[in-house]
């Protein structure tokens, strides 16, 4: 029988939840890296037992961890346990946490400063990895979205990382400015039908696409309208919270931004609003049903200063029409006195039939629906605040 593995990153460690295909009983393992913030954990589509985790700390910086056995054991790439920690030449191997911005002139300018909150130039400073996106076909290749916003890639299983500097250097980089949560690159989408095409989203710079494997990039923000920036339709400055794509129809994108749920039918070339009858079009997560590319999910949050569900009722909203018409999903979710948030990387789906939908809250619950959202139950609760949820469907 097939199974499901749910990878949960929290403020104080990582957890691996697993179940069989019925998704009724769950085994909880963890915390891994207890006490450290685990911004994101994700498995390789090419090798489901190869997992990567982003471990960080305000004190001690960023660590990349890797598991080769489905999350049972972990090590920093380059320093596997029991192996020599230096190369035959005597050089230390531990470089898994070395993210150094590219400043070489041939990769484009400006690469040295972005805008600070007051509009002045500010040096790029690496802080942490927000999102890890393993390649669709090579377990040793992984993309990392980092703060301050930049895109890195490893091709040796996480041991060394190098920036794809064309993103920062394509021309608008010096105009990027952080939102309240920092200048983070949080979304990386790989087009399964076009190996050269990739999308990224940055808070609060906007969204970008490459068609040549990351060498050159262009903003994809036509149609976005943000009243909180001086020019509401500017190319740069939109606070995109999340973008989602269905693998069978990669030209159609769905976006949850800082106000507005948006849709593009031409690979980000143009966007139009599909917020429709949502009680609030503010939120962080958005995801697509595994088998129905017109079925999408969001979790509306009251406002940009009160990051909790309207009226204290935790509701996932589902559209079966690709937006505009939305229905509240409430069965099994708290409908009073609930003031949690669901952060941008904290929703995922499995590919079983019926599709499973999962999300984690800042209150430490991970809710799951084994029937496409019709009914929900917490599969674990009282964890530290959940930062990310990813799901693997296992054979």
């Amino acid at each position: 029988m097939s199974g499901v593995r749910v990878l949960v990153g929290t403020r104080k460690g990582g957890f691996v939840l697993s179940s069989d295909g019925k998704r009724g009983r769950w085994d909880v393992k963890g915390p891994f890296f207890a006490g450290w913030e685990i911004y994101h954990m994700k498995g390789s589509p090419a090798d489901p037992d190869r997992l990567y985790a982003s471990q960080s700390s305000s004190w001690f910086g960023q660590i990349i961890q890797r598991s080769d056995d489905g999350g049972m054991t972990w090590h920093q790439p380059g320093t596997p346990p029991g192996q020599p920690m230096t190369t035959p030449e005597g050089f230390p191997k531990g470089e898994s946490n070395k993210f150094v911005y590219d400043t070489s002139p041939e990769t484009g300018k400006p690469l040295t400063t972005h805008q600070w909150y007051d509009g002045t130039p500010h040096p790029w400073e690496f802080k942490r990895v927000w999102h890890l996106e393993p390649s669709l076909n090579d377990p040793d290749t992984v993309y990392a979205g980092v703060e301050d916003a930049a895109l890195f890639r490893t091709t040796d299983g996480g041991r060394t990382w190098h920036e794809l500097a064309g993103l920062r250097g394509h021309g608008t980089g010096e105009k990027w400015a952080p939102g309240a949560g920092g200048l983070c690159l949080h979304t990386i989408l790989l087009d399964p039908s076009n190996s050269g095409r990739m999308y990224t989203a940055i808070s609060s710079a906007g969204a970008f696409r490459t068609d040549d494997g990351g060498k050159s990039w262009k903003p994809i923000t036509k149609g976005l309208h943000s009243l909180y920036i001086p020019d509401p339709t500017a190319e740069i400055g939109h606070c995109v919270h999340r973008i989602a794509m269905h693998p069978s129809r990669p030209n159609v994108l769905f976006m949850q931004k800082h106000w507005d749920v948006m849709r593009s039918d031409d690979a980000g070339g143009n966007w139009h609003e599909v917020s429709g009858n949502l009680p609030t079009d503010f939120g962080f997560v958005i995801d697509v049903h595994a088998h129905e590319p017109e079925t999408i999910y969001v979790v509306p949050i009251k406002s940009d200063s009160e990051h909790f569900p309207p009226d204290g009722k935790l509701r996932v909203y589902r559209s079966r029409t690709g937006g505009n018409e939305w229905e509240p999903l409430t069965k099994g979710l708290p409908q009073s006195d609930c003031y949690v948030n669901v952060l941008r990387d904290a929703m995922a789906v499995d590919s079983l039939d019926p599709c499973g939908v999962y999300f984690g809250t800042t209150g430490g619950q991970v809710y799951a629906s084994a029937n496409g959202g019709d009914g929900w139950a917490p599969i674990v609760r009282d964890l530290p605040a959940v930062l990310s949820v990813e799901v693997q469907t296992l054979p």
Partner: protein
Amino acid sequence: MIRVVLPAQLRKLARVDGEVVLEVRGEVTQRAVLDALEARYPMLRGTIRDHVTQRRRAFVRYFACGQDLSHDAADTRLPDAVAGGAEPFMIVGAIAGG
């Protein structure tokens, strides 16, 4: 023989319990001790000092023999008691909630 006390987070990262014992050749300075520490435990590279600038991370402090050595130059000689192994060189994370 140099004794180094790591904060709990870094002990976990380096997979060690208790104090770390290092051999440091030549003059015993902050830089020499940290170089030896990172050579022995490469997973700690970047966690105490910045990879590129080699500057101490803002929330990390160095103590020994009851003194705060955090603001000493990296090549300043450490106290004899540390160089002789009588007292440990302590790497401490700033105290904060959360």
